[in-house]
């Protein structure tokens, strides 16, 4: 089965063409600067052939039309005709309380997602544009939505509710949802696979550390808690986001700096986190380099970053009544030995025996970083959200087929 996976952002579309069940990536690419000056498609094929095409791309539908055009082209294509496309899987950021798993997209599903726009006004509209475009361009091809929030829908009410008047939850669905669901699900399952242990018997803490970062407590195969909340701002210190912040302090900032809502939003989303504290960069590598060169603020930034992760690991171990596996993933989690070391070393009291030798220099591949006799396993597992979307799409489309024939 050939499946296109689409991740539509406000002015970009990331795409991959998968062959399932072999999991081969036949082609992938990026449509960038949609509706802006200098729009382009960067496309690469399995055999290494690459092309960059520049031109006018006015909207998502046009971008998707072009990427389909490239996929079936003689020169750069991987398939002969659009008829070979069996399904399209979409990444959708916010499904609110509507869906606790991936779904086959119908008119009703689209209507439900449209109702969630309020919850993710920046992310959901472009995701929906991707769905509308495929509906227009490939009307007979089945589509599946895979949601960032879905995996965390297993959180119990006492964890997802905020300490605010309950009527606000009822009126606006203000509660914690969590994000990076596909990633947390993928790496936790993969950890169980690698260890050869039953997924539903494990207590796993997954640390997705990228530019955005979140950490999840996964007990017996279900998300119990995660550090992001109603929006991706809560929790860990991120590249440019604050993470946990006293609301009183935030109100004080708004008052002192006379900020309006949109500016306040920019402050906590784009000017804060590692960038804001260090004043250097949102990129871990730049901050580490500055710290090595003796920059004190860079040093404290790193300490804050590590500490927040340690704190959540401790909290989630307590929440689950222990922990069996800690997984690192995401750009920083996969590639930064220092972060892994500072967040999990000296935790023997919890049963974590971290092996520096295994950690050192390890980048971007699956590995176990704890000693062989460590009660808790510390692992690195590169995430693959696109593959999760492709697999979910495959399973849902296959099961519908068998339902129809049976």
């Amino acid at each position, binding site marked *: 089965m050939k499946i296109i996976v689409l991740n539509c952002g406000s*002015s970009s579309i990331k795409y991959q063409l998968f062959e399932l069940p072999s999991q081969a990536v036949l082609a992938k690419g990026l449509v960038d600067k949609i*509706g*802006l*000056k200098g729009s*382009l*498609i960067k496309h690469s094929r399995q055999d290494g052939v690459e*092309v960059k*095409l*520049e*031109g*006018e*791309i*006015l*909207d998502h*539908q*046009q971008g998707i*039309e*072009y990427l*389909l*055009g*490239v996929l079936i*082209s003689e*020169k750069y294509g991987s398939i002969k005709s*659009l008829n070979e496309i069996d399904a399209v899987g979409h990444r959708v950021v916010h499904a609110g309380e509507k869906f606790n798993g991936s779904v086959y997209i119908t008119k009703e599903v689209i209507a439900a997602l449209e109702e969630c726009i309020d919850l993710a006004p920046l992310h959901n509209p472009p995701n929906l544009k991707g769905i509308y475009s495929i509906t*227009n*361009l490939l009307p007979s091809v089945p589509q599946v939505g895979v949601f960032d929030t879905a995996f965390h829908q297993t959180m119990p009410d006492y964890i997802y509710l905020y300490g605010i008047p309950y009527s606000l939850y009822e009126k606006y669905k203000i509660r914690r949802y969590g994000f990076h669901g596909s990633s947390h699900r993928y790496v936790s399952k993969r950890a169980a696979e690698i260890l050869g242990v039953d997924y539903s018997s494990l207590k796993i803490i997954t640390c997705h550390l990228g530019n955005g970062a979140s950490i999840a407590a996964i007990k017996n195969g279900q998300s119990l808690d995660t550090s992001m909340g109603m929006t991706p701002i809560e929790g860990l210190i991120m590249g*440019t986001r604050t993470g946990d912040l006293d609301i009183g302090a935030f109100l004080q900032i708004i008052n002192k*700096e006379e*900020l*309006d809502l*949109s*500016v*306040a939003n*920019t*402050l906590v989303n*784009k*000017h804060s986190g590692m960038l804001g504290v260090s004043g250097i960069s949102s990129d871990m590598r730049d901050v580490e380099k500055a710290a090595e060169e003796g920059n004190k603020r860079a040093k404290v930034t790193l300490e804050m970053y590590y500490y927040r992760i340690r704190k959540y690991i401790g909290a989630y171990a307590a929440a689950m009544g222990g922990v069996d596996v800690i997984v690192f993933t995401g750009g920083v989690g996969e590639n930064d030995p220092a972060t892994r070391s500072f967040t999990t070393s000296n935790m023997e009291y919890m049963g974590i025996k971290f092996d520096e030798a295994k950690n050192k220099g390890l980048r971007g591949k699956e590995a176990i970083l704890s000693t062989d006799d460590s009660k808790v396993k510390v692992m690195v597992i590169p995430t693959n959200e696109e593959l999760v979307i492709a697999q979910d799409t495959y399973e849902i489309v296959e099961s519908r087929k068998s339902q129809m024939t049976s």
Partner: protein
Amino acid sequence: MSDRLEDFSLGKSMQSKGTIQKVGIVGCGTMGQELSVLISQSGIEVAFIDISEERVADVMLRIEAMLDDRISRWGLTGSEKKLIMSRISGSTDYQTVADCDIVFETVNSKKKGTSLELRQQIFRKLEAVISPTAVIASNTATLMISEIASVLVHPERAMGLHFFSPVSKVKIVETVRSVYTSDETYATVSKLALLIGKKMINVNESSGNISTRMLVPLINEACEILMEGVATVADIDETMKETSGLQLGPFEMADKIGLDKLLKWMENLYIEFGEQKYKPSPVLKRMVRANLYGRRVGEGFYLYQGDKRLVKHGHINNLGRV
């Protein structure tokens, strides 16, 4: 041999013709600068025209300073600034707006009297270079678009779009169709309004639209109260802000607009309607004669030092000076 993106089209999506790619701005004062930023921020290329190379360079610096200020107030990031600047260019040459889909005229004439002829001249110059389907819009609120556009070969392409400062915050734009304006012109303007996130308030052509016509008598009346010695500038402003929900009091507003500009609006309205309520207050005329134009020059009804607004303690007979 390089491939063109168009060659990969499936021919299914409509090639949306008439989408706005580039906007021109003639006369890049405060309004022109704010508009340039807003339009560029929406992903559209901006070419502005001003009177001299020095002025063009100065405008670029001012736009940059405006964006730096927003960064320092957390409203923008450095990379967003770069992106915005990359889409704005300035020149003294009308040819640089030849490929624009819409051109705004936002001139500020320093000369006394009406700017009707100046605006007509600009309209004519623009029509000579732009494409037949391009729209010409004026930011005037008190002059008649029909009258400005009457000098065009194709007056149906002209419309009034009255923006308000600060453009980034005010959600509306007053839109005025002249007696000639075509539906196509209106459609292009509507598209732009959508792209830049402004709600159109459609106004039938009438001097002052809604905003200026309401504002002028308010400021005039404030001047009357001041002249009669009923209350001070600061007290009048504070009372109006506290009781009417205005963000600025009438004198703060007058200083911000520029008293010279305000005087022109009043004169235009007075000529159009002949009503006493639009007749410029003598206080305002005297201030303008003394070149106390307001915030722009550092003194009007208040004194301005940097970001600070200071109260003047003198009598209004001395224009507030002690």
